[in-house]
């Protein structure tokens, strides 16, 4: 059977016409408004409380809407945005180093390897400056210079210093800013907060998103919540690989359930492998820990020149070391974008020059920076990261070079959205990492925080008003047949998971799925490998439904049941990721097909055939998905072979 069929192309993304720098202004003016008195009567559901969801829920409530917010954690403050370390980009040009909105736009489109939408990216660059203002006003303690003004640093893929940061905890500080704004609205009664609740289904009424089915993770109670619009801010799906830098609970269920209800899933194969993570230490490994990209400002990446050189790194003389990023990419050096740094690390390890017990590692060495700037300066910049490294590995990075290896970190793919961040289902909006929008085939460092907050604080609150103003929508409640049906589906699914009562744990399946994905749909993909992976995923998924063992009942706090539902959805997503990777017969950004590379091993795009967004439509279990293409037009940044040499 064929793996997919092709449907109608996507003709309209609803971006206004005209010059790119005027489009957002035009859209804001053309968007319909909702009278403040009417906002109180409208309810918006926001799923997820990270940078995107937290900021959106707070802002919508400030505007006067009634908001219902959901997160699976015990508090909205714990969403995984909190773990972002390095920083947030903004085109403030405080350094007077030639930055501008246009340059941030240019860098982001180029960094995404010409697979993102120009209109969206330009808007992102425009609002980036407002984000910094907003966060400072909230009391976010950004790093400052002695004169009291904000400090910035460099990040990969840029030659200007536009990254604002709060030591190595920028995500935490930005999230707490959004969380505090959200708590203020909770305190005022404008937001109804539901922590420890997980969305398990989307409710459609007359083709519009009107509610969700949630499970209370403490009592197991399943309920249906209705609203005028639904916003998904449920993050990315990196945990399909089992080992990733994502939090353990991160999952695809909210977006996957919406996909099964008709929302297109765009570019699922675009995943970001982060070059600087702590290498795997053994089979017990449950997650991987990132070492911030900011470390590449001062750390130098190297491996021994000769294969199998097992000497202590300190005993390897300078001329026997290969600082391969500086050698291959002299103009960007250690600060090449993530996809390039990751693949380079893989290549030197494949050549047998990897270091550490598993030989899957390269050195990130601070000796030069410590000599140049002194230990104190390095401690001030990266102290917490160095401590974290030492706690995990038992090695002191001030004395011994860090060992790092690439790991799955972020997913650029996600639910398809138009310029208004609305999916193809009316009333279903998708923001932050959960949508596919702005990063193309590769995200630049410090741009995830920027996009999450741009979507939540500034873009969605404007565009969702346009949708809500087109109402009024019919009143519906949980007794609507569509709501009852969705709820029955969820209950049935929970029952099925509990009924298998087999002989393998959920984690054992998840681990095996992750190995298949890392092997065949990770840093390098090939036709043969992807076909093999599709077969393996299908048989493993079948085994899952015959052999999984979920203990306990549905009417209690049951972490093994939660995991089972998430892994069941990962199986379906994994297959679509492989199909997407297989159909995209080119290399671009994080998607590297072995068959498509330049003579010197760089990604070889095929703009004639693949300059489009692949938006997949679900049909039915066991039936091929339908591919809808959205052509990408580049009017301002002309596609070139990306070069960081």
């Amino acid at each position, binding site marked *: 059977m064929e793996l997919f069929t092709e449907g109608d192309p996507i003709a309209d993304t609803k971006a206004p016409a005209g010059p790119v720098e005027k489009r957002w202004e035009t859209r804001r003016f053309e968007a319909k408004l909702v009278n403040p008195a009417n906002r109180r009567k409208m309810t918006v559901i926001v799923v997820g409380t990270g940078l995107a969801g937290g900021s959106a829920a707070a802002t919508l409530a400030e505007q006067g809407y009634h908001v219902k917010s959901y997160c699976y954690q015990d508090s909205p403050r714990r969403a995984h945005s909190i773990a972002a370390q390095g920083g947030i980009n903004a085109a403030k040009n405080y350094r007077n180093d030639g930055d501008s909105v246009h340059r941030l736009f240019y860098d982001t489109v180029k960094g995404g390897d010409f697979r993102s939408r120009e209109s969206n990216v330009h808007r992102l660059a425009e609002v980036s400056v407002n984000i910094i203002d907003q966060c*400072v006003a909230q009391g976010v303690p950004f790093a400052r210079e002695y004169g009291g003004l904000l400090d910035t640093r460099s990040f990969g893929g840029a030659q200007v210093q536009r990254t604002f940061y709060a030591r190595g905890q920028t995500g935490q500080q930005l999230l707490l800013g959004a969380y505090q704004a959200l708590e203020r609205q909770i*305190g005022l009664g404008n937001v109804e907060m539901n922590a420890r609740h997980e969305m398990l289904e989307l409710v459609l009424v007359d083709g519009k998103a009107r509610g969700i089915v949630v499970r209370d993770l403490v009592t197991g109670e399943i309920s249906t919540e209705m609203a005028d619009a639904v916003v998904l801010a449920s993050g990315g799906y990196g945990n399909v690989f089992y080992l990733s830098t994502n939090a353990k609970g991160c999952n695809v269920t909210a977006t996957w359930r919406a996909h099964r209800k008709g929302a297109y899933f765009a570019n699922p194969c675009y995943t970001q492998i982060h070059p600087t993570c702590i290498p795997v230490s053994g089979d017990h490994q449950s997650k991987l820990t990132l070492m911030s990209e900011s470390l590449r400002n001062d750390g130098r990446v190297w491996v021994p020149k000769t294969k199998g050189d097992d000497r202590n790194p300190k005993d390897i003389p300078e001329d026997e070391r290969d600082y391969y990023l500086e050698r291959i990419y002299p103009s960007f050096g250690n600060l090449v974008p993530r996809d390039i740094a990751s693949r380079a690390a893989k290549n030197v390890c494949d050549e047998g020059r990897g270091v550490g017990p598993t030989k899957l590692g390269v050195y990130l060495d601070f000796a030069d920076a410590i000599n140049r700037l002194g230990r104190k300066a390095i401690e001030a910049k990266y102290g917490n990261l160095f401590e974290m490294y030492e706690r995990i590995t038992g090695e002191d990075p001030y004395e011994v070079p860090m060992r790092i290896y690439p790991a799955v970190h972020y997913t650029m793919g996600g639910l398809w959205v138009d310029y208004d961040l609305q999916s193809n289902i009316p009333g279903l909006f998708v923001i932050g990492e959960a949508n596919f929008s702005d990063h193309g085939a590769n995200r630049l460092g410090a741009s995830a925080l920027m996009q999450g907050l741009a979507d939540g604080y500034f873009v969605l609150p404007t565009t969702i008003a346009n949708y809500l103003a087109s109402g009024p929508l019919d009143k519906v409640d949980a007794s609507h047949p569509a709501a009852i049906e969705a709820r029955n589906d969820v209950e049935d699914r929970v029952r099925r998971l509990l009924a298998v009562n087999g002989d393998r744990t959920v*984690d054992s399946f998840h681990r095996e799925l992750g190995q298949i994905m890392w092997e065949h749909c990770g840093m390098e993909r090939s036709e043969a490998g992807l076909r093999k992976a599709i077969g393996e995923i299908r048989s493993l998924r079948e085994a899952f439904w015959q052999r999984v063992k979920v203990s306990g009942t549905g009417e209690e706090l049951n972490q093994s049941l939660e995991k089972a539902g998430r892994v069941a959805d990962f199986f379906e997503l994994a297959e679509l990721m492989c199909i997407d990777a297989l159909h995209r017969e080119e290399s671009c950004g994080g998607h590297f097909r072995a068959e498509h590379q330049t003579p010197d091993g760089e990604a070889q795009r095929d703009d004639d055939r693949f300059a489009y967004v692949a938006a997949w439509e679900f049909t039915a279990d066991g039936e091929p998905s339908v591919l809808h293409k959205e052509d990408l037009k580049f009017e301002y940044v002309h596609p070139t072979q990306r070069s960081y040499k």
Partner: protein
Amino acid sequence: MNLTLRIWRQKGPEDKGRMVTYPVDDVSPDMSFLEMLDVLNERLILSGEDPVAFDHDCREGICGMCGLMINGDAHGPQRGTTACQLHMRQFKDGETIDIEPWRASAFPVVKDLVVNRSAFDRIIAAGGYVTAPTGSAPEAHSTPVAKANADAAFESAACIGCGACVAACPNGSGMLFTAAKLTQLSLLPQGQPERYTRVIGMVDAHDEAGFGGCTNAGECTPACPKGIPLDTIGRLNRDYLTATAKGANNTPGS
């Protein structure tokens, strides 16, 4: 390594709960403490027993979701380290390890090692913010902040809201948590207009949630994985005193 674990098992809020002993063999010193619990849980599931419920998420020491009393120490023996970042190389072969939930009346047990910390959210909702609705912010550089203040604000802002301070406190007080947020915001110019209403609101919410009072026992800071300094509580007390002297209940800026 071979270990003996004694773990608090409690089916739900109404259950009395008890310590249950589990031997765990072949523990690698490179495992994290939670990975060691994962190994135990895999075994319990396959033998048809209920796995041990415990909270965790990021497993890199920043989300604040994990929190275990390990041999009577909040987050275990290593200073400045959350349970998820604690590695088994900190323990000896043959050791017996007691694992219990946070114990405080403001943090009722949900199940096994999982507690309800929503009281912390209520403290923040009662004033732990700067009122700055989206869109209303002035240019970021319009107000410089002395680097020393910005750095000190950051130190306090590093709190992850895990609750170790409460668990370590003989009074079950949440003062270090409350003081950390108050200190961050009172050191920044943006936090000044609401400074004195904030402290009243947050301290009232703290007391209403059932946390105990602070008697300067000083157990909280050593247990804090982020090393929030004890003098933040002194700062809270000064602001609280000023606020009450001013009668600043609901008069912003007074």
